């Protein structure tokens, strides 16, 4: 074998690994979920009918769109989807409003301070996600720290109902996903050529006009990436609404969980997951469509990872 063909073969292997990975850990599970979503629920092990089966001499397909039709017929699902999208959108906006100044401050900090500040953003996620959400229960509960402080200071007479509200869900989502907003924003702000901001000031732009007309448009890639990195996992979020939300907090992640584990209706649950994935593909497609030339490809990579992670849920 000549060295040339060895190199070509090696090249193919190296390039093939990520595709193989995607095929085994993304495409295959997705196809399995898709298959289950086309089956009927039965009381058996596994609890769904076979979609493809060997009937003596030929393959027999018995796919049904019943499950998807059911999602349409019961308003509960539609409300849950819309509610999830709303909660995710509001939480994303809050994370952007909080995260942008943070990222800006970190990017503008002296170089020796910058890595410390970045660490401070990332370090909390080294503790278990679950523990951190439980910690919020301790903070928000009726006799939790926040209420104790408020009543102690005499600001409120009765403890506020903070836990088991939508507010608590927002707090939890914004808190959990803030690093995913800050990091891409930081990357795009840090890469910004500061002489552009100086040029804007020099040409008569006040600091606010300079921000709006130069800095904001030039960090659009980071804003888009950060928003999607928060929005996508937040839409399917299950743990946070379950632990912090009230009985009436209806989010699709919770519905999915109930279908799988309470109702043991795998086909419906799979259909819920497929529809969720389809809904999330819209913003991802928009992102790639409107991605500015030169906007962070690292962010796009992160995004792919997030989308893949979401599909596995």
């Amino acid at each position, binding site marked *: 074998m000549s060295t040339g063909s060895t190199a070509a073969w090696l090249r193919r292997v190296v390039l093939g690994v990520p595709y193989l990975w995607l095929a085994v850990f993304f495409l295959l599970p997705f196809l399995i979920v898709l298959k289950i979503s086309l089956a009927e629920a039965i009381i058996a092990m596994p609890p769904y009918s076979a979609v493809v089966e060997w009937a003596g001499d030929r393959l027999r397909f018995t796919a049904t769109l019943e499950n998807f039709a059911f999602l349409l017929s019961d308003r509960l699902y539609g409300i849950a989807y819309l509610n999830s999208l709303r909660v995710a959108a509001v939480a994303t906006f809050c994370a952007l409003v909080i995260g942008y100044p943070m990222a800006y401050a970190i990017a503008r900090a002296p170089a020796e301070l910058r890595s410390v500040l970045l660490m401070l953003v990332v370090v909390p996620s080294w503790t278990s996600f679950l523990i951190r959400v439980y910690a919020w229960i301790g903070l928000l509960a009726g006799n939790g720290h926040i209420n104790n402080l408020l009543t102690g200071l005499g600001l409120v007479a009765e403890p506020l109902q903070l836990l088991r509200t939508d507010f608590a869900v927002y707090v939890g989502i914004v808190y959990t996903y803030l690093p995913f907003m800050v990091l891409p924003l930081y990357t795009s702000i840090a890469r910004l050529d500061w002489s552009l901001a100086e*040029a*804007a*000031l*020099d*040409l*008569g732009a006040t600091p606010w006009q300079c921000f709006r*007309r*130069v800095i904001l*448009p*030039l960090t659009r890639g980071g804003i888009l990436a950060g928003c999607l990195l928060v929005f996508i996992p937040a839409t399917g979020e299950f743990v946070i609404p379950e632990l912090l939300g009230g009985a009436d907090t209806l989010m699709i992640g919770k519905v999915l969980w109930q279908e799988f584990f309470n109702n043991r209706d795998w086909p419906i649950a799979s259909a819920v997951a497929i529809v969720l994935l389809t809904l999330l593909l819209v913003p991802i497609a928009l992102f790639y469509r409107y991605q500015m030339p030169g906007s962070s490809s690292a962010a796009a990579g992160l995004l792919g990872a997030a989308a893949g992670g979401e599909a596995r849920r």
Partner: protein
Amino acid sequence: MAGVARSFGGVPAVRDVSLDLARGEILALLGPSGCGKSTLLRMVAGLEMPDRGAVFLDGEDITRLPPYRRPVNLMFQSYALFPHLTVAENVAFGLRQARRPPAEVEARVTEMLALVRMESFRQRRPAQLSGGQQQRVALARSLARSPKLLLLDEPMGALDRKLRAEMQFELAGILRRVGVTCMLVTHDPEEAMVMADRVALMRDGELAQVGTPAEVYDSPRDRFAAEFLGPVNLFGGTVVAGGGGGVLTVRVPDLGAEHPVPAPGPEQPGEGASVTVAIRPERLQLAAGDAAARGALAVEVAGRAFLGTHTVYRVRLPGGALATVQQPEDGSPPFEAGRPAYLTVDGAALRVLAD
């Protein structure tokens, strides 16, 4: 500006600089990197605040004015064109900030792009332009608001050598046509001399010498100024007689004679003081022979380099020191290395340096 100073973390970048510009004048701040010339420029633009001193424009103190309130515009070394805007939008940026009516903005943009011959590139993005084209757009953008003072930070810094030489003349031509007062920063003496009416030579945050290009080149005040502006021969000498009318008689052993030399400044070195005497290589001349009678020095050619317009010779003087001679290329046969030749010194070009 008067007594302007600025330090960064205790390290002074600019100390006590005072400088005046006349209306319509182009002044070059010239100096090696790190001499504080860019910091000085940024203080005039308002992008740095001086620790001490004040900046005046038309008699008005603008020291504490933020950059967006100063009638001063800066052309950045990197041009700093907004990558998300077209050429026309870049030029219009400052005008829109000033809330000029759209028709006026449009007319001014067209006028400015015509000035820099970039009309046909209106709708391009900066990334689609060459370095020279970007520079023109940057110039149009910084002139669009008709600033009272235009600042240029290393205007040729991002261009390659050949383009640089072309653009120096073109840029200076545009600036003179517009009649705008300019302060430009450069580390290239040739650029300063091509473009500026006056050169302010800076060193270690201070002004070393200010004058027209000819003054600074022909009569450098000290060794730094002499060496920074171009090649120079330096010789040790002794003052024989402090003369009247600011002329000293200096004996220069290497050049084998006593020469009358203008005194470097008000404080004249006394009789018997050792001084450094400078002369530019083009003020020395080699001849093949016969010149001894006119006081020429017999020298030996140590080496030569042909550079097209002229030839540079290294010659060994009778005392053993080496000197550089720049001989215009006029078709006469070259002086061969290792052969004797005769050196004449243009005594009027000798200068005593203040050390």
